[in-house]
């Protein structure tokens, strides 16, 4: 579901940027992309991280990845924000699709992650899905 939302956000934003339409929807979609999509594309391919946090950690990861990409393009004197966005969108969509494919058609049985020991408090090292 979150992957689908991320993919739809990306596709809609690409369409708006490509068509050159400005306005509040474009600003909100950009905010959604900047705070969610790249992180989601990473988390969806990282089962342990994903089991711990489906959505929250994606905020930090998204902001970090995009800030790093923007800085690299500034340092390299290759400042093309819209071009960078298209590249990031393509990578994110690829990541989201790969994550979905891996989940639907796993190539090998999932590695058993450490489960919470019986009788232990919730949230121990084995506990998952905090958000």
């Amino acid at each position, binding site marked *: 579901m979150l992957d689908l939302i991320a993919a739809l956000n990306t596709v809609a934003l690409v369409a708006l940027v490509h068509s050159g339409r400005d306005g509040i929807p474009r600003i909100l979609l950009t905010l959604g992309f900047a705070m969610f999509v790249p992180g989601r594309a990473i988390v969806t391919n990282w089962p342990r991280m994903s089991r711990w946090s489906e959505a*929250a950690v994606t905020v930090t990861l998204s902001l970090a990845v995009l800030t790093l990409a923007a800085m690299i393009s500034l340092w390299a004197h290759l400042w093309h924000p*819209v071009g960078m*966005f298209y590249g990031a969108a393509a990578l994110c969509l690829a990541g989201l699709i790969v994550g979905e494919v891996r989940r639907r058609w796993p190539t090998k049985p999932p590695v058993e992650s450490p489960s919470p020991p019986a009788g232990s408090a919730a949230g121990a090292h084995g506990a998952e899905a905090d958000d």
Partner: protein
Amino acid sequence: MTDARTLQAGAATTTPDVVSRTWLKAGLAHVSTILVPVSLGLWAYGVRHAKAGRLGPFGLPAVLPVVFYVGVALLIISIGFELAQSKLRPWRLALHAVALVVMLYGTAPLVYPAGRYSWLYKTIGVVQYVNAHGQLNRFIDIYQNWPGFFALTAWFDKVAGVSSPLVYAKWSQLVVELAALPLLYLCYGALRLPERQRWVAMLLYSGSNWIAQDYFSPQALGTLLSLGIAAITLRWLYAGNLAGTPFGNLRRLRRRPRPTESPDEAEPEHKRMNAVKSFLTFWRPGRTHREFAPFSAVVLLIFFVLTFTHELSPYLLIVQFGLLAVLGFVRPRWLPVAFAAIAVAYLVPRFAFVNSHYGVLKSIGAFFSNATPPSFNSGTQPLSQRVIQYSADLLSAFVWGLALLGAWLRRRSGRTVVTLLVLTFAPFFVLGLVAYGNEGLLRVYLFSLPWAAALAAAVLAPVPATDVGKGPRWKAMRRLAAPVLGTGRRVQALAVPLALGIAVALFFPAFFGDDYFNRMPMGQVSAITTFLTVAQPGPIYTPVANSAPMADTARYSQFPEHDIFGPFGVLGRKHVTLDVAKELAADANTLVGAHRAAYVLITSGMLHYIRSYGLAPPHDVSTLLKSMRRSHLWRRVRVHQPGVQLYELPPIANALPARQ
């Protein structure tokens, strides 16, 4: 016996008293269903009818209608009801947390058409510079030396199709505080705080973050990155309480029963076996470090981004996690060393610039001078400013006081309480190194707050009676505590809203009190922005620094700002006479020569600021205004905006004072 109890219970349920009690319980469970929409409605009505045009020395709180406060109070009462439920309902609590953040941080952007704080406009200028030039100039200012935030927002503007961050910057505080909520929840979950305490801590954090570092700025992004680093580190790289982990279970397994321990308190056999199984499943030699290496790598990557985003945040994290590593709570222990290496490697080539502008070397070791808050530098303050300042101080003391009390109550929770204490109070060490423009204490509060709120939550939402110490030594204590803590939820139903109410009551003057001069009228913003877009480059003299929406264009570096009054002002401590206009013209001539323009900008916000902080006697201000009006050297620029006086010293006239 069991049958008899069941029969008695069955009989009891038929009495009208129990039926009404059941109905009451069901009704109380749905109080929030009514209270939340009502409170939001009242708040929205209050925002709509706020008299923002009549702001006085007490800022926004004085012009908000009573219904606004009734709305906020109802939400806090609803939070109390929700936290008093025997089984917490996360979606409802999340709704309450979001509603509280919207009420506290969404009010200003709805009431004011333009973003608050003059310094916000400087960050907008840097973003505009990045987009206009596509590169940085490290010699302009400190922002261009730590440009991560500006690169991200410049990229954002192009993708969002906006010409300037002015369009959306005022919403930054709301977005940042909303984004912080899930990250806080992760952090508290990683520390294995009880569910109720996590929610209380999150609510308290939102209700007491008065220092407003969440505006459109590098430190706002730094806060989100720092919380993410903390969450991942505490979850995956933290050797916290071993209880509950396979390692902890193994340790428990090895523990010999105490001689006084009764058989029913000893570890049951099947639990011991489960502990062995879980340990054998989990632990294989050499596996742990390899498994957690990706998390270390991600944390280092985010830290690297943080390093070039904000100049102070990395060092606060280094101190916090460095101390935890020294105590052996963070693994691998080299992680803070790697943090420090990244931060220092980035700082070294920029150190000369930073030191020459901010005197870093001078402030090392000057703890007490570094810890002095900014307001202490000004002269006599009026009552309004003292009330605002006391509110902020009281709120900080309230949160830190509750944190210390919470630490005492949680003193038996081992590493968790030590970790929280370290994270809460370690940022104070940074005050021994830097003054940070007398804002060091504010940043300490910002970095301390998430963890102080977590400790405070232990006071407001204590653990159930069953957790009051274990073993025979605590048997008597448990028996004593049971009647009190048995009604724990009822106590919490009062304690949480009361504490949150106190925090929010102090938050309003502390956060909105300075809006008398922090609010930027849209007309002034537009007028000054338009002027700076077309004017010839030159210095701008202002009565005081940082009190007008200046520097929000890509040309911001061409208009350096100079104060007229104040400790660093052009006039110094000189007596102000009617020749002040001539003196300013002479200063401009010395500064930029005869062939460049210079400006004097006076706004209503600046005059409010001077009055509020007592930076100059009223007579001096009126003399300046009179002198500027009468001056033949300065030409009044027509701005068509009430509250703005702009004077230009044309390049030719600029040469006159020196000749005279």
